[in-house]
């Protein structure tokens, strides 16, 4: 009898981990990932334990569940959970041109050094040192659309996608060490 109960409990836990993986891998909203309260609703109050088990499974594949929060969001339920690659890529994994990636890299480093926000005009002027103006305008708009940057009243700031995907400390260290 005890064995049966234990088996049932294990099956239930496995079902929850599978459900969590499906929720996190497949896109449900415009922005990938789901809010903590959505996981709680789908997996129950112990959803953080389920995420812990999923994380151990993903770790073997070089992935992890990451929680990103907006400023002032303290509660776990308010954060957004998404799956990211744990280690940096060794092969090319983006169709972006090398100079577009360079522009994004320089823009992010510039904004981070300005405490996370800088006037768009200043960034454009800074980039014109190495890139043609017409390409800069399109590139910045594209990064905003992709979520790497945010725009507010003619100022650019770090977007949700950069917070999820980019190890900002590592980016600054690598640039300074180059």
């Amino acid at each position, binding site marked *: 009898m005890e064995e049966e109960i234990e088996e049932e409990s294990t099956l239930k836990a496995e079902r929850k981990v599978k459900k969590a993986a499906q929720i996190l891998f497949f*896109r449900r909203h415009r922005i990938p*990932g789901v809010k903590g309260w959505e996981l709680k609703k789908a997996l129950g109050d112990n959803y953080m334990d389920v995420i812990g088990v999923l994380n151990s499974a993903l770790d073997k594949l070089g992935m992890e569940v990451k929680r990103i929060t907006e400023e002032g969001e303290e509660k776990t339920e308010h954060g957004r959970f998404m799956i990211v690659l744990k280690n940096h890529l060794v092969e090319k994994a983006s169709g972006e041109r090398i100079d577009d990636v*360079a522009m994004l*890299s320089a823009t992010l*480093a510039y904004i981070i*050094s300005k405490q996370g926000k800088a006037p768009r005009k200043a960034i454009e002027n800074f980039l014109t040192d190495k890139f043609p103006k017409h390409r800069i305008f399109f590139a910045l708009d594209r990064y905003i659309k992709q979520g790497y940057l945010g725009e507010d009243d003619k100022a650019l700031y770090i977007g949700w996608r950069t917070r999820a995907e980019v190890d*900002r400390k590592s980016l600054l260290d690598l640039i300074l060490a180059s």
Partner: protein
Amino acid sequence: MKPDELFRLINFCETIQKEGTDPFDLDVKKFLETLKHYHKKWKRLDDLLLDAEAISELTKIIELQGKWIRDRSSSFYIDPILMELKLKMLEPVQLANAFIKSWHPIISMDRITTKRLKEGLDYWNALLPFSERKEEFPLPSTSETFTFDVEDLIDLNILSRAEFEDSIKAVLNDLEERGRIEYHEFIYDDEFESSVEKAYLTSYLVSEGKAELDIDALEEEVFISPSNAPANTGDVRSIPISLSYEDWLRWKRK
């Protein structure tokens, strides 16, 4: 009392927020002393509103000062000038490599499930035809427009009947003197305004049968000549003829 000093301080606060300059450039203590100094003199509602705006801007700067300290003490802090110099020195490839090495892309997939397809089909079935949903997409409202004809202008005393008839007669005399002539050649005058006026009066001559239009479709030319035909009573046909300032300029330069 001159609140110019307060306006300057409010502007300075706004500049710090917009430009992202050092929030500690503002002396908070001095700002508060200035507000205290003015506080006793406030009498009108506008004074109090200005005082409230100044306090509001000051709180934003204090918030920025707090953030500035947090940023400086965080591991992300780096001298912006040093970073700018470093970024300018690096080649695009080096910058791209630094990004790729610190990049952990999100893994996410889009997939249409059978359930979602069924939902889409149900939505389609429940959707009324576009012709029946026009209220959901109303046309932009336009103000009702009115036209003024000559009778209205005469009623409003903007134009007198005698004056109008004299003008028509003058145009008719001109046409009779010149005979059959290309339409634009006839109506274009030294001034563009008088050309438009002549075109307007000429349209009356044509409507009343005192002038006749002859259109050469092949050459895309319109000729006008005097006529004694009766005024339009039966089928009315409109003939649009363009009249543009650029065309008039070209004619004048000839």
